[in-house]
């Protein structure tokens, strides 16, 4: 047994492979993105035949894994919490159909949120779909729960959700592990159309079966002391007890053991749904008050039969938004202890730090596109040429185009296109010719751009669509896209050129341009815009193609140069506001804008940005 420091997502990968998971699909999304790469690393290390794929979106991932599972194999799909929204249609139905082989859905939550549109709670999705959910507190437990999830799934013939939160996914923990073996189960799909292609009449029967499964699993969860347990001493009564699960459990455990507070019992619910109601009732009976600490919403709180004793989000005791960080939990416990008239925790008071910092104007650190990012060049040209347009955008690094004034909306995956057509029709109805420029990344376009584009073409919308093709899924950690023709494990796949997809969606105007060439990009945008207003025109698509500067440094900037700022600089701030490259800064000593050599990527796009021509390349005449 060797010991290794695993990322939480690596611990999950380890658990999946230890469980003999044979097929794993995923669409990258923080904080879930590293599960599949970790599977691939371990699979290569151990020579396993596990099938892996980056699917084009989460619904696709779920459907693929579901099919494998109903052949009797063990299968899993991984995604982030908002990805499960995309896959919700499949999930709800898969719950009714059930499974033969183990089928585990991993949906990673992002309390905070650190890198998501919402703080939604996957446990509620499990409740809506009527499937069991497991809620790990740390990487080691996530690994064990991955195995448990397969056991439950196979025993009861039901999909099981594993919900790790970001502090599990992106925690690191030292874990011992040993050899992994291939699972030899063979695919055998037994035809049964009444089940696998059930019509509404049979769905009623399946629903009845599903409800019975849930009752049976609830009985199991009442007794499943590896994940649902408490530490009450026999016969004792307590002024305050805590019910918790997931990451808050780990924090509560740490606080109470550090403070040696064995007078506060804890009920951990690592398997909160279907709800082990009797276990919770027994715990509550022996407490005068009960504090519920869970992320990110109120699943346990809602499911508690009697809330008279309960302090939680519904009673205003627990913050309703944001991550339950250790300080927030300590503060909440202290308030509860105070209301119970019990001795408070002796936690350090760091309140005076806030006062100290009030006098220091700490720089606001907003996320920014990297130096050399081709999206920055695209956004600069878009804003410069089409200042009056509505800029619809999408999910990815390029959402940060909002720093350059080139992103007005960001709703969900694919909405750059669907909102562009929505805006078009809303203005068209009033007879207003509103320019609209939509921006979407290559991976996001493959994920959910095509349906919206087909719809927009079909219904006669008019707008410019810029596909920001950096040939990678960058924000989530550099996963390949279908456009590239490289599969998840690095092997060769079939490349699907964006051009062909765009043409296939019925687009007549298509230009491909390198956004580093500001002039060419501006001219392409001008022609595109003209096409959208031409009576015989339509939607115009510009593919702004330049490789991501992080994923393909050499390919992106083969010959880096050293731009510098001359005394012609009048400190107008245009470059910093409109181009917003992190390497540009105002140097008080020099008295004008300068370039930070350490940060500069050498792309030299800024040379074309300065209205005074004050940015030049060292050694070159102006």
């Amino acid at each position, binding site marked *: 047994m060797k*010991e*290794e*420091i695993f*990322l939480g997502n690596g611990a999950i990968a380890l658990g999946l492979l230890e469980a003999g998971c044979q097929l794993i699909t995923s669409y990258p999304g*923080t*904080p879930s*993105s*590293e599960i599949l790469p970790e599977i691939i690393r371990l699979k290569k290390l151990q020579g396993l035949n596990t099938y892996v794929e980056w699917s084009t979106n989460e619904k696709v991932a779920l459907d693929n894994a579901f099919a494998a599972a109903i052949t009797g194999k063990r299968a899993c799909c991984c995604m982030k919490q908002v990805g499960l929204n995309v896959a919700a249609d499949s999930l709800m139905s898969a719950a009714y159909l059930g499974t033969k082989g183990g089928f585990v859905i991993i949906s990673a939550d992002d309390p905070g949120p*650190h*890198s998501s549109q919402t703080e939604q709670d996957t446990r509620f999705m499990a409740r809506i779909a009527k499937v069991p959910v497991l809620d790990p*507190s*740390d990487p080691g437990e996530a690994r064990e729960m991955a195995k448990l999830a397969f056991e439950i799934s196979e025993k009861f013939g039901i999909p099981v959700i594993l919900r790790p939160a970001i*502090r599990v996914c*992106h*925690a*690191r*923990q*030292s874990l011992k592990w040993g050899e992994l073996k291939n699972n030899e189960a063979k695919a055998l799909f037994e035809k049964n159309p009444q089940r696998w292609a059930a019509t509404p009449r049979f769905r009623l029967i399946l629903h009845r079966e599903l409800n019975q499964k849930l009752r049976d699993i609830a009985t199991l969860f009442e007794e499943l002391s590896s994940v649902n347990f408490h530490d009450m001493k026999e016969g004792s009564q307590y002024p305050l007890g805590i019910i918790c699960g997931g*990451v808050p459990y*780990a*924090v509560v*455990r*740490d*606080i109470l053991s550090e403070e040696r507070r064995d007078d506060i019992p804890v009920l951990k619910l690592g398997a909160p749904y279907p709800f082990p109601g009797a276990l919770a009732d027994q715990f509550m009976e022996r407490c005068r008050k009960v504090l519920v600490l869970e992320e990110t919403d109120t699943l346990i709180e809602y499911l508690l039969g009697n809330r008279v004793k309960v302090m939680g989000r519904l009673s205003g005791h627990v913050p309703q938004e944001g991550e339950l*960080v*250790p*300080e927030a939990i*300590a503060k909440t416990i202290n308030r509860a202890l105070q209301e119970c008239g019990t001795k408070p925790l002796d*936690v*350090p*008071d*760091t309140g*005076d*730090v*806030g006062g*100290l*910092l009030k*006098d*220091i104007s*700490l*720089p606001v*650190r*907003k*996320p*920014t*596109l*990297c130096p050399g990012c081709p999206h920055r060049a695209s956004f600069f040209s878009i804003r410069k040429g089409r200042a009056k347009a509505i800029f619809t955008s999408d999910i990815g*690094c390029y*959402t*940060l185009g909002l720093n350059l004034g080139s992103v007005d909306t960001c709703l969900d995956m694919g909405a750059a296109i669907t909102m562009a057509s929505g805006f078009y029709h809303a203005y068209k109805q009033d007879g207003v010719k509103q320019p609209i420029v939509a921006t979407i990344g290559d991976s996001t376009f493959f994920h959910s751009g095509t349906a919206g584009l087909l719809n927009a073409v079909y219904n006669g919308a008019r707008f410019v669509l810029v596909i920001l093709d950096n040939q990678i899924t960058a*924000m*989530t*950690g550099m996963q390949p896209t279908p456009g590239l023709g490289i599969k998840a494990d690095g092997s060769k796949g079939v490349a699907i050129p964006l051009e062909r997809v765009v043409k296939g969606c019925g687009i007549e105007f298509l230009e491909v341009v390198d956004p580093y060439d500001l002039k060419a990009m501006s001219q392409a945008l001008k022609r595109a815009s003209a096409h959208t207003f031409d009576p015989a025109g339509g939607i115009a698509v510009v593919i702004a193609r330049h490789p991501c500067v992080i994923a393909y440094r050499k390919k992106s900037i083969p010959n880096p140069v050293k731009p510098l700022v001359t005394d012609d600089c009048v400190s107008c701030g245009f470059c910093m506001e409109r181009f917003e490259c*992190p390497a540009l800064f105002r140097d008080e000593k020099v008295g004008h804008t300068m370039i930070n*050599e*350490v940060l500069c990527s050498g792309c030299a796009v800024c040379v074309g940005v300065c209205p005074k021509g004050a940015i030049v390349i060292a050694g070159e005449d102006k």
Partner: protein
Amino acid sequence: MNTVNIVLCGLGGQGILFMTKILAEYALKKGIPVLGAETHGMAQRGGSVVSHLRLGEARSSLVPAGKAGFLIALDPWEAYRGLSFLAEGALLCVNSPDGDFPNDAVKTYMTTHGVKCFTADAGKIAGRMGTPLSTNLALLGFFSSLPDISPFSHEGLGETIGLVSPDRFREVNLKVFEAGFEEGKRL
């Protein structure tokens, strides 16, 4: 042993994750249980990056406020932002290019709380070695020269850097680490 809590902070791209990895691998080699928390995704793009590392018996990955024995900051502004992590008697190690960290109010605060503060221009040290991007290793070298950094040691951290560095960076990483160490010794 009591849990050793370490917070590392700075900006995206400064190499916080690599620094964290070195400290974590060091602890693993010493047989100490390791638990930590990292920043990924949107938050990584040029924003503040904080890494938490807990060595010992901790169950949750975040270092609570007021509990960090060590705060290592690659950026002085981020050091200010991380002050609330500091425990009584903690050690603060900051890359301060302008040498103006900390301000007077913070100095007083640190004296009251027994915090020992050490600063170096780690970027300059790395730059002198021809690798301005290795500021993280220069600061770690500087840290390794400071008193009372148990369970860490200069030799042990150097060894770990040798182990975890990719082949083509091993030599330069160690060179920068040693340069940071020498700078600290001179103080």
